[in-house]
């Protein structure tokens, strides 16, 4: 998938994460801010990159503001933000396909 316009998903509530995706032409530029950076920073990065890979996102500026989200929440927020950026978040989601 290609990030076509800026999009956001998630909140800054505890156990959630807010993801902002923006168009970018030169690969993935990822920045992470987290309330649990020291313990889980590497894991958050791995989860976000893996989710982007599943979605086939090759280029994009991704900003993560994590408030202690579980891995499944991080995935859900990244997926939602990317689908929103393509205007495709409302229907015919490939559940179990690239969303997994």
């Amino acid at each position, binding site marked *: 998938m290609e990030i076509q316009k800026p999009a956001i998903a998630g909140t800054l509530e505890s*156990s959630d994460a807010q993801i902002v995706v923006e168009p970018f032409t030169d690969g993935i530029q990822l920045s992470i801010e987290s309330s649990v950076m020291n313990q889980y920073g590497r894991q958050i990065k791995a989860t976000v990159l893996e989710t982007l890979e599943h979605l086939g996102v090759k280029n994009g500026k991704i900003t993560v503001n994590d408030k202690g989200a579980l891995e499944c929440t991080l995935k859900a927020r990244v997926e939602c933000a990317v689908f929103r950026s393509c205007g495709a978040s409302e229907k015919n989601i490939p559940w179990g396909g690239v969303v997994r």
Partner: protein
Amino acid sequence: MIKRPKPQKFRLRRTMMFMNAQKPGLIKDAYIYGADSIILDLEDAVAENQKDAARFSLYQALQNVDYGDTEVIVRINGLDTPHWQEDIRCVVAGGADGIRIAKCESAQDVLTVEEHVLAAEREFGVEEGRTLLMAALESPKGILNAYEIVTASDRMFGCAISGGDFRKSMHVQIEEGGIEMLSARGQMLLAARAAGVQCFDTMFPYLDDTEGFQAEVIQNRKMGFDGKSVINPKQIRFVHETFAPTPKEIAYAEKLVRSFNEQAESGVGVYTVDGKMVDIPFFEDARRVIALAKACGVYKGDL
């Protein structure tokens, strides 16, 4: 990836706790409070512009959170919204146990949902017939059509009245003693029992009114409900205690079952126990009480 066991159509459902599917803090540990079922909500709890986000959140929770023995039901958006079809795809693909149809008013509503559920089961390779259904009756029309609704599909395990919307449509408020919904509750119970499905009461919204809450739960039990919606973990325990058979009921049921076994052997059909006439229907009900006591974990006997 969590693979949930095949849902059971008939199981213990004393409490069904509502959780907003859009709130990760709620859905990640929804099972620890011990409700028999949880209802992850895509409908009223989720803002109109977050319906898409709630589905991604729901799908990932269904795939990754181990809810154990807690039944996982999803309340989908009404059939008059643009959301319900994608809700169904998400719920079925994610592997939830069942769907609560909001604002159900006719057998046709059930058939429409069932058709899309079946299509989704085929699309995502889920066993056909796995996903159960229940109906939320929220209007006078829904109550009047309760029987045709609960008999519209083999997937249907029960119905619940939804007090908020129902009271609004009847121009009434919550009253002490529940007179404002007495006939609706009664009519829904008749329909559910006639169809052989379960029947659930609405949630009690005043979290700090313990007395009012308890009175309503006790009335629910006396009327014959199988369970109740709850909106806060602190409501669970009282409902579970109230819906479990009492020691007295259990003792009487045991006595009936034992005496029936003896009488049947000597060819007697109707007889008296403790001065009260009993016959075969009493025996069946006694067995139901013992089964319920076992399911509630309060049975200590050996029947």
